C-alpha cells in the first residue's frame, strides 16, 4: 500500500471536488431532498463560510468568503478561476435534526458540529452517560450521512456519467 501521507496529498483534489459537488447539489436541488445511500434523504445547504484554495505548498492561494448568500456567486467565480473549496460550512436537515458544521476537504474532519434541535445537557442533570449517547448520536448520524454522500459522489465520479452528464450540468451551474 502506498504511503498514507503521500496518498493524503495525491488525493487532495478528491476531497475538494467532493465539497464542490456538495455545493452544486445543494444549489441545484431546490426544495427537493437529496437521497443518501442506506440513509433517509436529507436537505443540504451550504452555510455562510467557505474557504477556497488553489495549488499546494508555497503556490497556494486562499480565498475566504464569509457572509451572506450573495457571496456564493463570488465563490463560484473562484471555482471558474481554478480555486476549489478546502473548507465549507454545511447545514444538513433530516426530520427533527438540523445540523450545522464545517467540513474540511483534506481529511473530511468536522468542526463545530451542533444540532439546533438537540435538547443539550439539562441544568443539574447528572445523567452524563445519557448525554454521552446523545452526543454520539449526532456524531454517528452526521458521519454516516457524509459517508453516504461521498459514496454517491464516487459512484458518479468514477462512471462515464461524470464527463457526459454531471460535468456539463456543473459547468452550466457555474456559468449561471
Amino acid at each position, binding site marked *: 500500500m502506498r504511503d498514507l501521507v503521500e496518498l493524503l496529498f495525491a488525493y487532495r483534489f478528491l476531497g475538494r471536488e467532493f465539497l464542490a459537488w456538495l455545493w452544486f447539489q445543494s444549489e441545484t436541488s431546490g426544495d427537493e431532498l437529496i437521497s443518501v445511500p442506506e440513509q433517509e434523504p436529507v436537505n443540504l445547504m451550504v452555510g455562510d463560510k467557505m474557504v477556497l484554495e488553489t495549488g499546494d505548498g508555497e503556490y497556494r492561494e486562499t480565498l475566504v468568503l464569509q457572509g451572506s448568500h450573495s457571496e456564493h456567486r463570488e465563490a463560484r467565480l473562484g471555482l471558474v478561476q481554478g480555486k476549489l473549496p478546502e473548507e465549507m460550512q454545511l447545514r444538513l436537515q433530516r426530520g427533527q435534526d438540523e445540523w450545522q458544521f464545517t467540513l474540511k476537504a483534506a481529511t473530511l474532519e468536522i468542526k463545530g458540529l451542533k444540532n439546533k434541535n438537540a435538547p443539550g445537557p439539562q441544568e443539574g442533570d447528572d445523567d452524563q452517560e445519557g448525554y454521552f449517547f446523545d452526543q454520539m448520536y449526532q456524531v454517528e448520524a452526521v458521519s454516516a450521512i457524509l*459517508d453516504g454522500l461521498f459514496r454517491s459522489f464516487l459512484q458518479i465520479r468514477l462512471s462515464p456519467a461524470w464527463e457526459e452528464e454531471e460535468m456539463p450540468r456543473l459547468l452550466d451551474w457555474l456559468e449561471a
Partner: protein
Amino acid sequence: MGIYAKSLSFTRYFVRGETPADFYSWVDERLQAFLFREIDDTTDEKAWGWVELDNLLQTSFGGGQAHKGEYLAFSLRVDTRKVPAAVFRKHFLLAERALLAQQKFRRLSRNQKLELKKTVLQDLLRRQMPQPSLFDVVWHPGRQRLWLFATSPKVREIFETLFRETFEMDLYLLFPYTLAQDILDPAALDKLELLEPAVFALGGVRS
C-alpha cells in the same frame, strides 16, 4: 474540546487488526499499561497517556471505566510545560548580566551563550507547572471506527503514536482516499488510481 462540548470537532479513523478473544478486558489492560503519569515533579517538557473519559485525574481502567455500550471511550491527556518567550528573555538577560560581571565584563563566547540559554530554560521549566489538555477518544470496535475529538495535526500525531503503541493495531486516518478504499470494490478502486482531477476552470477545458 471533547464529546461533552456544545459544539463537536473531530477527526475520524479506521481501526483494523486482530484482537484477542477477551477483547474488552485486554483493552482495559492495555489502557492501564499506558496511563498518563504526572510530570509535576520533573522538568519534562511534555508527557502523554490515557485517562478516564473527560476526567483529568482518574487513571484506572480496571473496572471497565472505558466501556460505554458498544463503544470504548477514554481520553488522551497531554501535559506541556511552556516558558513564555518574554519570561525567558528577561531571565536570560539577568543571567547574562550576572555572568558578565563575574568574568569582569569580558564578552561571552558563542558557546557560553548557548550553555547559558540551556541552563536558564531548564531552570524556568522546573519552576513552570505543566499545562494539561484532554482529547476524548471514542472507539466502536464492531464497526472498526474511531473518533478523536481533536483536529490539530500535532494532537493527531501524539494520539496515533500512543494508540499504535498501546494496542498494536492498524490505525488509519479517514480521508478521501481511505474512505474510498473502504467503500469501493477492487474494480472501482482501480479506476480511482487512474483518476485525474476535474477541471472546472475555463469552462472545463484542460490546459
